[in-house]
């Protein structure tokens, strides 16, 4: 359990750094790479989706905690694009979740095959 959490946490950090450096396109790319590398672990795509959503949530909430007007702006932005406030927040979570998950899923399909275990004599 703790290993899974650690894995998701580190993955979230990778998503956050990727997004910070390269923008939203980093999410499917990091997911793809993760899927390719960890394709043989348990539920790599799910972990990628959750980590990507967590990363974006953190990228939005950390500035708010430092005093930047992220939360008040969210209300304005949602009204500007004429969606309910919750829909904007939902999009901020669902989009990375789906792109991270789908990227990782694709990555697992592209991952090199694990060499077959030698047969017992």
């Amino acid at each position, binding site marked *: 359990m703790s290993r899974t959490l650690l894995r998701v946490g580190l993955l979230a950090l990778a998503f956050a750094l990727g*997004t*910070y450096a390269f*923008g*939203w*396109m980093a999410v*499917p790319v990091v997911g793809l790479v993760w*899927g390719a590398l960890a394709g043989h672990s348990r539920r790599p*795509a799910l972990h990628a989706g959750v980590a990507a959503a967590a990363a*974006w949530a953190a*990228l*939005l909430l950390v*500035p*708010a905690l430092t005093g*930047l*007007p*992220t939360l*008040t*702006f969210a*209300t*304005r*932005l*949602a*009204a*500007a*694009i*004429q969606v309910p406030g919750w829909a*904007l927040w939902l*999009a*901020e979570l669902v*989009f990375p979740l*789906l*792109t991270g*998950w*789908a*990227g*990782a*899923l*694709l*990555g*697992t*399909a*592209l991952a090199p095959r694990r060499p077959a275990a030698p047969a017992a004599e």
Partner: protein
Amino acid sequence: MTNRIWRGALGVLVLAPLLFVARRGAGPLPPLGALIDPVHGAWAAALHARMLKRANADVPGLSGTVSVRYDDRGVPHIFASAELDAYRALGYVVARDRLFQLDLQARAGAGTLSEWVGAQALAFDRQTRELGMPRAAEQKLAALDTAGISWHLLQAFADGVNAYVDRLTPAQWPVEYKLLGVKPDRWQPINSLHLFNRMGFTLSYIPDETARLAARALVGDSAADALFPIDAPIQQPIQPAGPPVPSFAFRALPAPGRPDTAAAQLASLFRGLRPPGEAAGADRQHFASNNWAVGPARSADGHALLANDPHLDLTLPSIWYEAQLVVPGKLDVYGVTIPGLPGIVLGFNRDVAWGFTNTGADVLDFYKETVNDPANPTRYEVDGTWRPLERRVVVYRGKHGEVLATDTVRYTYRGPLMHRFGEWVSMRWTLLEPSHEVRALYDAAHASTAREFLDVMARSFFVPAQNMLVADRHGTIAIRSTGHFPLRPPGTNGLEIFDGSRSSNDWRGYWPVDHYPQSVDPAQGFLASANQQPEAPHAQYAYLGDERAYDPWRALDINQLLRGNAKVTVDDMRGYQVSPLSVRARQFLPFFVAAAESPTGGAYATPALQSAVRILSRWNENYTRDNGGAALFEQAMQDLRDFTWDELDDAQGHRVATPSDEVMLELLNQPQSTWWDDRRTPNVVETRDKVVAHALAAAYDTLAARYGDPAANGWTWDQIAKVNIRHLLRLPGFSALGLVTDGGRGTLNPAPGGGGAGPSWRLVVDLGPHVKAWDTYPGGQSGNPASPEYEDRIPQWLAGKLSPALVPGDTAALPANRVRATLTLAPEARR
């Protein structure tokens, strides 16, 4: 293996549409990824909402370092050692706070909005290009001397804007770019001229030929000319010198005459000339303004005082941006600029303060042209000679570069040629002619006396004509309606359609400056303009404009207030700017009350009418937020107009034009006029009191149905008249809607129409030995909707308060505790 394929296929199936929508958008949606990216998308507006306490930037072309100190109201004070450096810095700081606004307004002026928003802007762009505004900007730029100050100012300002644009990462682009899915353009010097043109369009595109022609078609020439007169029935000229003029010069209105079929034909030529979206008979008087000044003899502190509040569309961000430019020994000017213009438009320096109101001059005429081929003309005839038409093929492109439409715009030597219902009409308009407004603003900033200010403006400021009020430190106050006023052929005015085949119908030049409406240090000790007719008819040098562009009510009010106060204080000036008293209501109210109590009005003597009279009798003629009289009065006026001018309804029942309230007042003084009879009731002859009482009763019923019982406070002005300050893209989330303030139609603090226009800036200046000023505007300095300075001034504006402006002469004079941020601009490092 199968499992692997399934996983891959599912991944692709989910990812592909997501990536498409994220990268390209879908339908009206912009590219979603760039929008919701938490670091680089729309959210970045919040990350960049607060100005850094200290920042540095390189600006190409600077000759020395420029220090910009932002005070605690967000006003940048620019300290430079060379003038052009100050204007470069102005470009930089304006772009820093208002980049999207710069870009958007320049596109509006250039007629290229559809490249950002697609086909929905096509009608707007088409009108801009059809009117020849972008071509005029090109010609004005090409005519500039590249060694002259105007060219250098335009270039310096562009350098500053571009220095900011070039250093931006996509994450730093204003949020609106991300919502539209577009990117900032580099600023071209011509963009400033597009902006001047756009402002000129707003204030001088007044094709008033339409109203009178349409009325002539229905009620004949004589009646139409009386309903839409050249001279206002109420005179309160800005030029007080000369023989005394009666304030009310009412004339008998001739009865409706026979329809004029020739006028009907001509009137049809003008369908479609209104700005896109503007309804027929729309009230353009909301683009009004006030300015006034008192000389030392009438001010409490013995200094000249000046006030100005231009009434324009209220937008977020505001049309204005406040700044100070200081170059020791050369320039020290404070005021507001329109983002994109290289200079301070309204404001003051150490010696002189100035403010504008719109003159409303008729500077636009139409000519019916004779062309060689009505289907596809290439030549037009003048004095028996065929001249070639200049032709321009205009391509309108959409967001992705696709061609939305292609037009051929033709020009005669007079201006653009338009095709209207089988006829070809050309237009001459001062806005499309050479002018030097950049130079004018530069010279104004350097003026040291009121007279010098007026002279430099008369030399270079041609359009849109403005009533320029100025006061100086020596106590001189002066006003001059400044701009190019056409001299038309003798015996003609600007309300007719000229025969374009004869050059004798052309303008003969412009008014000599000596004959402009003007006054310097009048004996009365004060001067005021509020969009009234500038000069009394007998004093006017030639036809200047017509009554539909004028509005006497605020002028009557402010003149009365100033006349009654021999010791005007700064606070009086501020108070007058937000006065909710209606001189207009004072003129009309007695007619409503008398009609309701008259025997003929008794036909409507219902409890509703009695209640209405009670409300109006108790009303103090103030448009304050807590009273119910203003709403009833405005509805009664609306109904009175509707019931009275039925003769101006066409066969389909549409009102082709509505005479002004001044003409209505004129008619109210003629109780037996045949205009009171309602043609829609053939067996009854209505009289004045019957119509007026009916209007009042109907107004009461309307409001009762809409807002309930007046006793329940549902009719109070704050429930009905809201101020709506809309974002430039009209995005509700970035707008300030449903605000409440005092003021109404015709009051000094106006809030007419749908609440989208009003005092866009308020300024009071005290020109003592050390100039002092107070100001505010409805918005904030920042164009970033996430910034605390996006709309921080609105509460103050709503409350009718002003803030003292900090006017430091150097950096040391700016108190450290009032400095919010510092920006240092340095010459670009040599590589």
